[in-house]
């Protein structure tokens, strides 16, 4: 009886947990879609006004949204666009006169990403496709680059402020468009935005602060110099608030009691000292909300039926994972021989003050160690050592200075170690079953004296 009850409740909670996981996953993985905006009210208003004027008055504009990665540029834009569309609908409900006008009034926004549209040719085709101009066949655009450009420009030139549908161009990764030949696309877009043609608004998203210096002088002159900076300018208190908001369940969560419990737990967590330390550490490293999402994602994945609520330990573990050194992790998986080679390289680095070395030098160093401590180490053949060295090369723990030539002997290729001595020492500390002699050798190359 009690068993069945327990089963029931566990089934119930399993559902809850999967719900929670779903919500959190959506929140953290599709970060820009529904995420709320933090600390950018002014920028939001600026952008909203700008786009509103474009839609309502048909005023052409151009603006750049500049901010470091993860500062919410796309989120801001998405929010503005969402609100703009909603606002139209709101007004449609309020004023019947505008019904047709508003519901059929639409902005088309070619979302161009600099990573996808690698040159103007592709970008143009994409614009034409998204605008559904008449030379689009099905979902494809044919014809040469020149034809397409002429066609698009002709189309845009024909429009005017009062009668044409305004177009919003969103150029994601704006800095990559700058490198297109002659900046043809940018010139044309900005030129249209500065002339009495179809009203267009060009919004560029970029993380580069020096973007204006990259624009060609003619392009720069045509750009309106509106820059919206997103700076992540919140402090730690707000960061904690964001943490709480990101983690807490919404009011419309089906199981209210569970949501209550969950939210209380989150509140509790945010006051926990260890959690605050973890967050503080992350905050000191980066104010990027995406890394917070990543951290919460790592922690959130620990939530199961048997472990329904997040604990401080989860977060701590996630924080630790988040900050581990990747190269040091690789070192943990190396064989003793390989560790020995790395230690030999470390000593060479110390002796020659960071000058490059080759395999032969490393081998000699290793031989010296073997000769001293012959009892503790098996004397490997040179080809075996070579193989181990090549494995390190593959793991990119060492890197050749120049490209290996077919003719050159592998033993004498100059190499550099890509690990810092502190990394090696730290890795050795946690290396399981490390021979004591090797550890001693690692601390000092002169330990045999």
């Amino acid at each position, binding site marked *: 009886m009690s068993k069945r009850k327990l089963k029931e409740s566990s089934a119930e909670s399993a559902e809850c947990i999967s719900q929670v996981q779903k919500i959190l996953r959506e929140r953290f993985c599709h970060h820009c879609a529904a995420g709320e905006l933090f600390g950018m009210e002014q920028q939001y*208003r600026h952008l909203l006004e700008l786009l509103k004027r474009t839609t*309502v*008055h*048909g*005023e052409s504009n151009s603006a750049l949204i500049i901010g*470091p*990665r993860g500062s919410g540029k796309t989120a801001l834009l998405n929010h503005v666009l969402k609100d703009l569309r909603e606002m139209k609908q709101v007004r449609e409900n309020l004023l019947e006169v*505008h019904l*047709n*006008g508003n519901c*059929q*009034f639409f902005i088309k926004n070619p979302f161009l990403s600099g990573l996808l549209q690698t040159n103007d*040719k592709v970008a143009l085709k994409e614009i034409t496709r998204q605008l559904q*101009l*008449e*030379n689009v066949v099905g979902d494809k655009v044919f014809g040469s*680059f*020149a034809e397409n*450009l002429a*066609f698009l*420009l*002709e189309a*845009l030139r024909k*429009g005017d*402020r*009062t*009668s*044409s*549908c305004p177009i919003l161009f969103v150029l994601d990764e704006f800095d990559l468009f700058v490198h297109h030949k*002659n900046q*043809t696309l940018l010139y044309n877009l900005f030129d249209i935005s*500065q*002339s*009495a043609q179809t*009203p267009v608004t060009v919004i560029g998203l970029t*993380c*580069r*602060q020096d973007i204006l210096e990259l624009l060609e*002088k*003619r392009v720069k*002159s*045509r750009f*309106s*110099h*509106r*820059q919206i*900076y997103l*700076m*992540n*300018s919140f402090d730690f208190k707000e960061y904690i608030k964001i943490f709480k908001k990101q983690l807490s369940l919404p009011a419309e969560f089906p199981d209210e009691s569970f949501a209550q419990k969950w939210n209380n737990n989150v509140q509790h967590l945010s006051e926990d000292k260890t959690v605050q330390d973890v967050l503080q550490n992350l905050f000191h*490293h980066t*104010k990027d909300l995406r890394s917070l999402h990543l951290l919460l994602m790592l922690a959130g994945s620990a939530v199961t039926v048997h472990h329904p609520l997040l604990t401080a330990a989860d977060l701590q573990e996630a924080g630790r994972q988040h*900050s581990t*050194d*990747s*190269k040091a992790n690789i070192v943990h998986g190396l064989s003793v021989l390989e560790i020995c080679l790395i230690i030999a390289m470390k000593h060479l680095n110390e002796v020659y003050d960071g000058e490059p070395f080759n395999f032969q030098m490393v081998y000699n160093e290793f031989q010296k160690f073997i000769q001293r401590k012959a009892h503790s180490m098996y004397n490997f053949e040179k080809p075996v050592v070579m193989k181990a060295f090549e494995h390190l090369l593959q793991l*990119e723990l060492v890197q050749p200075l120049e490209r290996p030539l077919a003719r050159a002997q592998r033993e004498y290729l100059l190499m550099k170690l*890509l690990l*810092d001595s502190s*990394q090696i020492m730290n890795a050795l500390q946690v290396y399981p079953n490390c021979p004591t002699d090797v550890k001693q050798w690692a601390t000092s190359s002169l330990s045999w004296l």
Partner: protein
Amino acid sequence: MNTRQQSKLIYSWYGKPLSSDRKLRTFQYKGILITSESSKTETCIQLGDFILVEGVNADQPYVAQLVDLYEDGAQHKRAVVQWFCRLEEIPQNKRKLLKREISAQEVFFDQVLGYDTDIAAETIIKSIMVLPLHLGEELPIITLNKEQTFYVRQSWDGKCFKVLSPDTFSKLKEANKKRGVITNSSKAFISSDILTPVKKETENVVRSATKPKNADMEIESKHSTSKSSLAKERHSQRVANNDIKTPTARKKLELNSPTRSKGRLLGYEVLGLLDDGCDAIAPLEPSALKRKVKFTSEILGSPPKIPCSNDKSKSTSETAEHHQRSSDIMRLSPYTKVKDFSEKDKHLPEKDDILSLVGYQKPSRQSPVLTPRSRRTCAQKTSALIAQHISLLKSHGKLAAEEDFLSGSDSSYSSSSEEEEDDDVPCTPENKTKSSRIFSTPKSSRKSAVHTPAKTPKKTGTPRTPRTPRHATPEIPRRVQAAQEPASVLEEARLRLHVSAIPESLPCREEEFQDIYNFVESKLIDGTGGCMYISGVPGTGKTATVHEVIRCLQQAAENEELPPFQFVEINGMKLTDPHQAYVQILEFLTGQKVTATHAAVLLAKLFSTPGPKRKTTVLIVDELDLLWTRKQNVMYNLFDWPTQKHSKLIILAIANTMDLPERIMMNRVASRLGLTRMSFQPYTYKQLQQIVSSRLKGVKAFEEDAVQLVSRKVAALSGDARRCLDICRRATEICEFSLQKRDLEIVRMAHVTEAIDEMFSSPYVSAIRNASLHEQILLKAILAEFRRAGVEEATVQQIYHHYVALCRVEGLQSPTVSEIMAVCSRLSACRLLLVEASNKYLQMRVRLNLSQDDVMYALREE
């Protein structure tokens, strides 16, 4: 042109030369045989036939009526035509004057001045039908040869459409009827031999009738037929020989020759007129004038080949010439009849001629023994007849091959040629008077008022018939709801301050405007070509000024103060490749779409040959520096064309740098660009202030001081007017933003200062201040490493040691290498740091993208 490509065509004369000019070795013929090599078919086209002529656009051959055929001294086959123009050739903005639907087969009787009517005979494609219709009349339903049948209802004189004058109408009709009759009745191939006696007869009549005026007539009639330069020469020599005219008058006639009808129209009184108008007209045909002045030998004007001997025709040349003269006089008659002089004298021969011709050629037909007047009255009847003939023709055509049909109908034209020429007469006085009106000879303008009804402005220089792609029209969907008009003062101001807003005038560029205007205007009037190079930093109003000039010139051309011109604009930035410039220019001019290399060839041909129907082209080349190629052939060609004699091309080249010709152009290109240069200086603060306040005229939105602040700031930085306007616009937004309803809506200093700060402040400092703690520590570590090494570059490994030490000082957990790498890459994404590719890991070199002082300043404040 595509017909051309299919098979090679051989052009040969039909029959013997009708008349010849010994001096110039020209021979006139009645017809031309076009033999197709591949299909072994022969087509005979005779005077008076309607023909298709190769145009610049292969799809749209020109429609014309053959008026004269002759072989010039260099044995080039030439033809003189009366043009018809298609709807496509009429500027878009004029088409609406028509107020009705036009079928594809409808053409307009072309009375536009200035088209060259002298063409190479090789450009004739084939013969067609052109049927005159009354305005209200329905199109006859024609199933056969639809492609080759055109209708003409109205005439087009470059300014307005008019109903065909009864003369023209009846003559067109006559031409068709003859053709129809002959083909119907017998398909007889009427040789010129039969005709000659007739003509001789009429010639005698004419001579006797017009004796008193003969001398002048001779000249004028001669003149009227002369269309080519060669013909002109011939004419001038004749004049010289006869020694009748004063030199001025001779020159006069010479100049007028392209309009073809001057002499015909005016008779004695024209001389007086022309003397008056001489100076005014002179610039119109400078090339002709020059030629006249320079050369006196026989080979003038035409390609300088030695004419071969024409012995066999010499004997007949005298009579032929006489005959030619007389026929010219006959052609004159219908018109002069309208005029008040020599009516009786000329009316008679005209009648005789028609009568006799008709009598000889169409003995079986009952109809057209008509005087011009009666023709006019019974136009309706004849049109019905023509319709019959056409339907008959159709039924014939079904049986016979098309070539047969064509040649048969062509043969019929041997008789109608003279009437065809009559057709031209009514139109030509209008041309004539128009031209004289343009050049403000008061007398002739009065005359024109008599003969031509009120005209709407003539063809302007707008690009002809904007091309529509074959299956797609470039268009952005219309917005459903109309754009809101500005409601408040600030909104109004913002609208006016937008760079795209077109101000009524361009303040502070009056001088430059005048210079460019004068340059283009003078070239337009001279009918020559030329280049001008305009330079200036961005945002100094180069393009705006040039566009304003073009607008004014178009206005002037519309008001007939200037000859009409075509305006083409290309922009180096809007081309994907420099060679696309050819494609775009050609497309603007002709609507053709071809590849770049082909376009270059076509354009070179276009600008190097005296093309028919071509106006002066004004070409604006914006962002010239982008047309640079390694061989510079695009620039070379662009600047070479205007130097050609017949190019009629004026180029305004715009670029940013003043020394562009010296810097990037080869000597031969720079030399062709010439020395006509102009540079736009950056605006001074006073000018900027004036620009802003002129735009804000009547709107009290800005404090005077605020405008001045913006102007001074921008003038100090760049002098870019766009920047100035943008700042002002932003200031209005900020003002609106901070507005609390109760405030007076006016932009103050504070708003402007904020806008300026927003636009010009360096983003780096605030970016650093808002960076995370570790990012700031990394920057500090970098500074420390730089100071230690004395080099502004360090590897991550070097920085790492400082970094760890700094963290220890701050009491932070010492970071791992992965973390410092992450921080590094974040900062480099913002371009606060410049780093190498990250696969070098610890060996990655790092540099600051801003000065150390800036970093220190940004870090110290905290």
